[in-house]
Each structure stands twice: as C-alpha cells, then as structure tokens.
C-alpha cells in the first residue's frame, strides 16, 4: 500500500488568508483525492485530481475556493483560499490503489483552525 504524507500537520490561520496543503506519495499514482472532515463528522469528498488534467470538484466545492494542483504522479496541493472560521476542519488526501475499485489509502490529515 502507498505511504502518504501531508504538510503541514496542523495550522492556525487568520480569516481572509490562504493555506496550501501538500500531499506527497511514495509511489506513482493516477488518482488522488482531497477530503474534508469536520470535527465529529464523516468525510466529504472535495475533489479528485488526475495528473495532467483539471481537478474534478464535487457539488458545493469550487475551484476558486479550493484550487488544486497535480504537477506529477506523486504530489498534489490543495489551497484553502480566503479562509473563514467555517473552513476549520481536517483536510485529508488519499490515493487510489488497484485501479477503479475504490480502495484508497489516506494521509494523516491537516488540522486547520481559522480564527
């Protein structure tokens, strides 16, 4: 299984600023995913990122607010833009293994607090 790391592990940011979260995988993967998990809640898919193409966003999430980069097969970034306290959450990236079946491996998450 792939090993995924995220940076930063946590951050406290002021409203109106932006934070870029990095996701690094130890092997080449086609699909990467970004999720949000609010305290005590389940995970919500933000977008899927395929290398070499624009990210695909889920309903309720837009590129202007959550721009995603996927420059190569082992790396992706998610930016949370113009943050508000409602963006306080854990952001997780994951990768798909065994193509197509939905078997994912997750990073440890980035805990974001917006004040």
């Amino acid at each position: 299984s792939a090993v995924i790391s995220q940076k930063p592990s946590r951050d406290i940011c002021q409203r109106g600023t932006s934070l870029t979260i990095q996701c690094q995988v130890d092997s080449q993967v086609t699909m990467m995913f970004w999720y949000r998990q609010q305290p005590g809640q389940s995970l919500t898919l933000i977008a899927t990122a395929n290398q070499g193409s624009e990210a695909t966003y889920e309903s309720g999430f837009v590129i202007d607010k959550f721009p995603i980069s996927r420059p190569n097969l082992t790396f992706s970034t998610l930016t949370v833009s113009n943050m508000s306290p409602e963006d306080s959450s854990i952001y997780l990236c994951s990768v798909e293994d065994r193509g197509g079946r939905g078997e994912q491996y997750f990073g440890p998450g980035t805990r974001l607090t917006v004040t």
Partner: protein
Amino acid sequence: LAKTTQPISMDSYEGQEVNITCSHNNIATNDYITWYQQFPSQGPRFIIQGYKTKVTNEVASLFIPADRKSSTLSLPRVSLSDTAVYYCLVGSSYSGYSTLTFGKGTMLLVSP
C-alpha cells in the same frame, strides 16, 4: 448513488466477535464494497474490500449476500485497540468517483 446505512454505534467486550452491518440497497453492478477504520486524529485505514460472497484477510472478514444490498464486517476477538469508527463505502471509478461517499460510520467501543 449508492447510499449506505450503518448503526451509529456499537458496544462490545474484549475477546468477542463483532459484526457491523451496512445497508446499501441501491448498489450498482460495478460497485465494490470497501470498509475503513478510523482512529481519532488519523486518516481512515483500509480494512477489506469485496464484490460478492465472502472475503477474509488477516484483519477481518466481509460477508456479502447474493443480492449485494447489504454487507457485514466481522471482526474476530476484538481488543481495546479496535475501538474506532468503521465506515462502509460502496462505489467504484466505473460508477464515478463521486460514488465513493463516506456515510456516518459506526463508532465501535470495546470495553475490558
């Protein structure tokens, strides 16, 4: 979109077998059933995946009836360290990545 329904919580004691059932009435032909475990402050961890019948690995077993409208995760002889939230996912890239939607999960509490 195959929605899943699981019990919100379950309690067990060390050494017991725990069975968590997930209902997914609208499962599509191409969908797989995948279970994850999540500890506090960690990302979910893949446990097991299946399409039909029974799958077993070193951690758990997954039972899927012929109609595939439900599945049961079986954890043999649980320990305190199995206390976690367990999520059932149904979907696949063939059905669209949006189908890989996490439900509310089941909070399993294992007591001594």
